[in-house]
C-alpha cells in the first residue's frame, strides 16, 4: 500500500482489512478502538494502539492487582508515588532519591549482550526522567542450569552487556543476584535497577502542559531497530524453538546515553523543561501519548521532523520504533534556543517535532497529511483491563506435602562437611566475582559498600556523609512453594540486607517475573505474590514506589517459578557508620541474632544435595524482622558491631563461609547439639554479627527482645566447629571460588558474546 493511510481515508474505507491480530490485538480490543474513534484506525493509529495496549505497556492483566500498592497507607517519605516513571522518596537534608527495577528478559534471551545492555539503558533513562542524576545500578539475573549449553551462550553475554553499558555510563554497580534453575532455561531473567539522587525541588514529571510549548525529541536518530521489539517480545510466550518472531533487536549506544545524561542534567539545572519523558518500549507512540494524556491539553506532532537513520521507514514504523537513547521534552518557546544550545554542547541531536495544543487530541501529520487523530488517554492510560481467571495450581498441595523433613540428613561429620562444601560450591552459593569483576564498582568515588556485601551503600553528600543502601532479592523457590509467603520472604530478605548495613529501610520497588497471565494457575501465583507483598509492606510501614511486571516468561506451557524480585531502599544518616559483611580481625565474638527452627522447605540444602523442591517455605515473622532491623540500626549507631551478615539461602553454613572468606579470617565456633539444623535451616529474621563488646550487644538485644546465641570467636585460618569438623579456609575458598570460572571463565567462552558494533571496554 503506497498510499498514505490518512484519517480521511480511514473514514471512507471502513471495511479495509487490517492486520490487528498480527499486531497482537484481540478482536474485542480492535472493536473497541473502532468504537473510540468512531471509524477504523489508520495504519499509524493501529500501530500506536497495538503497542500501547500490549501487555508490556498497558499492564492489562496485572493492573487490577497492582492497585493494592497504591492503596497502602500514605508514607511521609513518599514524594512521588506509583504512576510516574519512578517513585521519589525523601531521604533527608532536602535530598530525594528515585529508584526502580525493570526487566529486559525476552530481549536478553534473543540477544544477550544487547538485550541486557539496553535493559540498563532503559532503566537509567527512567531515573533521569525524574530529574535525578543516576548514581548507581544493580542487576538481578536468573539463568537455566549452570552447565546447560544455552546458559553458556546467555550468561557471558548478559554479564558483558550489563557491564558494558553501565561501566560506559560511569555508574557503579553496587549489587544484585545471579541464580540458576532449570525453570529459567529459555527464559532468563535480566532485571536491572537504577537509583538516582536530586534535591526535592528538582523533581520533574512526565506531562505536557502549556499550549504552544514545543515538543523536542533529542538523543539518537530513529531507526528500524526494535520495531515492536520490547512490547511485542515481552507480551508473547516462546515456544520450544524460541520466539516465533525475531524482530530486529535494539543496539545500545551507552556513549550517546552518557551525553544524554549530562545534557539533561544541565537542562534541568537551567530549568529549561516543563515536562520530560524517556522513550522506551513503544517509542514515540508511548512518549507522546503519555505526555499528552498526563497533561492538560492536546499535542500535535509533525513526523517529518523526526531525524531518521533509515529514510525508508513508514510513519507507523517511526511511531513504533524502539531505537534507544532518545528522550522527549516539553519546552516553553522562549527556552527552546537555550535548550538546543545545551544539546549542541554535548553533541546531542535535538529537534522540535511538535507542540502542545488546545483541546484534547493527539494529532500526527506526515507529508502534510493527518495520519493520527486520537484521544491520548485512550492510548496511554485507558487501555484494556482484564480480570483474568485464576486457579490455585493443581500440583501445589502435593508439592507442599512433599516435606524435606523426610530427606536423608548428614549423619557423620564427614557428611556434614561434604554438604557444607556442596552448598557453598553450588552455582547459587559460589563466589560471584567472575561476574562482578566485570562491573565497575568504584566510579564516582562514592561507593561505600558493594557486592559481596549484603547491601550496596552509596554516599550522596560528601559534607554531611548522608547515604543510601539498597538490596535486591528474589528467591523463586520459596515463591513456587507459596507465592504469598514467597513474596514476603523476598521483601524480608531485602529489608534485612539493608538493615545489616546499619541503614533505616524506607521504600520498596519490585519486578514481578511470572509466566503467562492467560494460564489461570500463573495468574493465581501473580495475584498471591502481589497480595503478599502489599500485606507485608503494610506491616513494615513501607511504601511501594513503583516497579515493573514481566509476564509470558514461559516455554510452551511450562512457566518459570514465580519470581518476584524485591528492592528495598534505606537511608544512612552517616555512611561512616556503615557495617560491612565480612570478618576482618581475630579475637572478636561471633553472635547469632534471632531464632533457628528446623525449616528446610525450598532450602539451598534440599536443592543442592537432594535436587528437592517441596514442603513449605520458612515461616515469615515481619514483627521479628522489624525488631531485628531496629536493633541492627542501633548497634551500628553505637559502633557496637564490626560486621553483620544476614542469613538467607544456605543458612548459617553459607553465611559463616562468606564471612570468613571475605578477608581470610577463620573462627572457632560451637553450633549446639543439632548441627544440621543449626547450619542448614533457613529460618528468617537472623543475622550473624561480630563484636568486641559482646555484653553490650547482648544487653541491647535483650532490651529489644531478640534472642542471642554466642557462636564463638574469630581468628586463625580454619573454620572450626568444635567437636565436629574443621574447614581450612584454603579448602573452603577453593570450593567456593572455582565454580563460575570453571563454567564460564575461559576466554573462548567470551567469543560470540559481544557483537561487532558497540564494544566499549576501557
Amino acid at each position, binding site marked *: 500500500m503506497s498510499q498514505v493511510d490518512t484519517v480521511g481515508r480511514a473514514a471512507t474505507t471502513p471495511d479495509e482489512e487490517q492486520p490487528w491480530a498480527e499486531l497482537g490485538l484481540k478482536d474485542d480490543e480492535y472493536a473497541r478502538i473502532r468504537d473510540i474513534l468512531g471509524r477504523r484506525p489508520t495504519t499509524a493509529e493501529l500501530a500506536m494502539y497495538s503497542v500501547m495496549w500490549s501487555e508490556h505497556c498497558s499492564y492489562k492483566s496485572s493492573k487490577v492487582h497492582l492497585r493494592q500498592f497504591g492503596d497502602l497507607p500514605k508514607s511521609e517519605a513518599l514524594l512521588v508515588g506509583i504512576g510516574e516513571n519512578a517513585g521519589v522518596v525523601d531521604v533527608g537534608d532536602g535530598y530525594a532519591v528515585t529508584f526502580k527495577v525493570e526487566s529486559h528478559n525476552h530481549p536478553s534471551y*534473543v*540477544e544477550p549482550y*544487547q538485550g541486557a545492555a539496553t535493559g540498563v539503558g532503559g532503566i537509567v533513562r527512567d531515573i533521569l526522567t525524574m530529574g535525578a542524576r543516576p548514581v548507581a545500578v544493580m542487576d538481578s539475573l536468573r539463568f537455566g542450569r549452570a552447565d546447560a549449553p544455552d546458559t553458556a551462550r546467555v550468561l557471558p553475554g548478559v554479564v558483558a552487556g550489563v557491564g558494558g553499558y553501565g561501566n560506559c555510563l560511569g555508574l557503579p554497580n553496587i549489587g544484585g543476584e545471579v541464580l540458576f534453575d532449570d525453570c529459567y532455561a529459555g527464559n532468563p531473567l535480566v532485571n536491572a535497577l537504577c537509583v538516582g539522587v536530586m534535591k526535592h525541588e528538582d523533581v520533574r514529571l512526565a506531562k505536557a502542559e502549556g499550549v504552544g510549548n514545543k515538543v523536542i525529541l533529542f538523543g*539518537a*536518530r530513529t*531507526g*528500524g*531497530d526494535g520495531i515492536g521489539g520490547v512490547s511485542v517480545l515481552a507480551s508473547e510466550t516462546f515456544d520450544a524453538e524460541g520466539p516465533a518472531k*525475531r524482530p*530486529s*533487536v535494539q*543496539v545500545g*549506544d551507552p*556513549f*550517546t546515553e552518557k551525553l544524554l545524561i549530562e545534557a539533561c542534567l544541565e537542562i534541568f539545572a537551567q530549568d529549561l523543561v516543563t515536562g520530560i519523558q524517556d522513550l522506551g518500549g513503544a517509542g514515540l507512540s508511548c512518549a507522546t501519548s503519555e505526555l499528552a494524556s498526563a497533561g492538560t491539553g492536546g499535542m500535535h506532532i509533525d513526523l517529518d521532523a523526526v531525524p531518521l*537513520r*533509515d529514510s525508508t521507514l513508514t510513519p507507523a514504523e517511526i511511531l513504533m520504533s524502539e*531505537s534507544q537513547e532518545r528522550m522527549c521534552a516539553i519546552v516553553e518557546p522562549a527556552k527552546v534556543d537555550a535548550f538546543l544550545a545545551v544539546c549542541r554542547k554535548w*553533541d546531542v541531536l535535538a529537534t522540535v517535532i511538535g507542540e502542545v495544543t488546545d483541546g484534547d487530541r493527539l494529532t500526527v501529520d506526515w507529508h502534510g497529511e493527518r495520519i493520527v487523530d486520537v484521544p491520548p488517554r485512550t492510548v496511554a492510560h485507558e487501555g484494556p483491563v482484564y480480570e483474568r481467571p485464576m486457579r490455585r495450581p493443581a500440583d501445589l498441595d502435593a508439592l507442599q506435602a512433599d516435606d524435606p523433613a523426610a530427606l536423608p540428613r548428614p549423619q557423620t561429620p564427614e557428611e556434614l562437611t561434604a554438604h557444607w562444601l556442596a552448598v557453598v560450591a553450588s552455582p547459587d552459593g559460589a563466589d560471584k566475582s567472575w561476574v562482578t569483576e566485570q562491573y565497575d564498582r568504584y566510579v564516582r568515588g562514592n561507593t561505600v559498600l558493594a557486592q559481596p556485601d549484603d547491601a550496596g551503600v552509596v554516599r550522596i553528600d560528601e559534607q554531611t556523609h548522608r547515604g543510601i543502601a539498597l538490596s535486591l532479592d528474589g528467591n523463586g523457590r520459596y515463591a513456587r512453594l507459596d507465592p504469598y509467603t514467597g513474596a514476603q520472604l523476598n521483601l524480608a530478605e531485602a529489608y534485612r540486607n539493608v538493615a545489616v548495613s546499619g541503614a533505616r529501610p524506607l521504600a520498596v520497588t519490585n519486578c514481578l517475573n511470572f509466566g503467562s497471565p492467560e494460564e489461570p494457575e500463573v495468574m493465581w501465583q501473580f495475584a498471591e505474590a502481589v497480595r503478599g507483598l502489599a500485606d507485608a509492606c503494610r506491616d513494615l510501614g513501607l511504601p511501594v514506589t513503583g516497579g515493573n511486571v514481566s509476564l509470558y516468561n514461559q516455554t510452551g506451557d511450562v512457566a518459570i517459578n514465580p519470581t518476584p524480585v524485591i528492592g528495598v531502599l534505606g537511608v544512612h544518616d552517616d555512611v561512616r557508620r556503615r557495617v560491612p559483611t565480612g570478618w576482618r580481625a581475630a579475637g572478636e565474638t561471633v553472635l547469632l541474632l534471632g531464632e533457628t527452627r528446623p525449616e528446610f522447605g525450598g532450602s539451598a540444602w534440599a536443592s543442592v544435595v537432594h535436587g528437592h523442591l517441596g514442603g513449605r517455605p520458612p515461616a515469615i515473622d515481619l514483627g521479628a524482622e522489624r525488631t531485628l532491623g531496629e536493633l541492627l540500626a542501633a548497634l551500628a549507631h553505637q559502633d557496637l558491631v564490626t560486621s553483620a551478615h544476614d542469613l538467607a539461602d544456605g543458612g548459617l553454613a553459607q553465611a559463616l563461609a562468606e564471612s570468613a572468606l571475605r578477608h581470610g579470617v577463620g573462627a572457632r565456633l560451637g553450633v549446639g547439639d543439632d548441627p544440621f539444623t543449626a547450619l542448614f535451616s533457613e529460618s528468617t529474621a537472623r543475622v550473624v554479627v561480630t563484636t568486641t563488646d559482646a555484653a553490650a550487644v547482648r544487653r541491647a538485644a535483650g532490651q529489644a527482645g531478640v534472642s542471642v546465641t554466642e557462636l564463638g570467636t574469630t581468628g586463625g585460618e580454619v573454620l572450626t566447629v568444635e567437636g565436629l569438623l574443621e574447614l581450612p579456609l584454603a579448602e573452603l575458598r577453593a570450593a567456593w571460588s572455582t565454580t563460575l570460572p570453571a563454567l564460564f571463565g575461559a576466554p573462548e567462552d567470551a*567469543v*560470540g558474546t559481544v*557483537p*561487532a*558494533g*558497540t*564494544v566499549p571496554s576501557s
Partner: protein
Amino acid sequence: MPRVVVDVVLKPEISDPQGQAVLAALGRLGHDSVRSVRQGKHFVLEVDGTPDEAELRKIAETLLANPVIEDVELHFPND
C-alpha cells in the same frame, strides 16, 4: 596455507554507534568527503588443505557473527 577472510558487518538496519563516532571524528578533522562509516570485524583464518566452503560458512555464520544483528561475507583464496 590457504587463507580465508571473513568480514562480519552489522545488518544495514542495525545502528552502528562506532561507525557514527568515527564519522563524526572525521568531520571534525576536516575529512568532509566521507559520508558514512560502518565498522565490522575482519577475520583471517588459515586452514589446512582445501577450505571446506560449507563448513567455513557455518563457522562464520554461527560463531564469528551473531546472526541476529550481523551478516557475513566470506572470501576464499581463489575469489
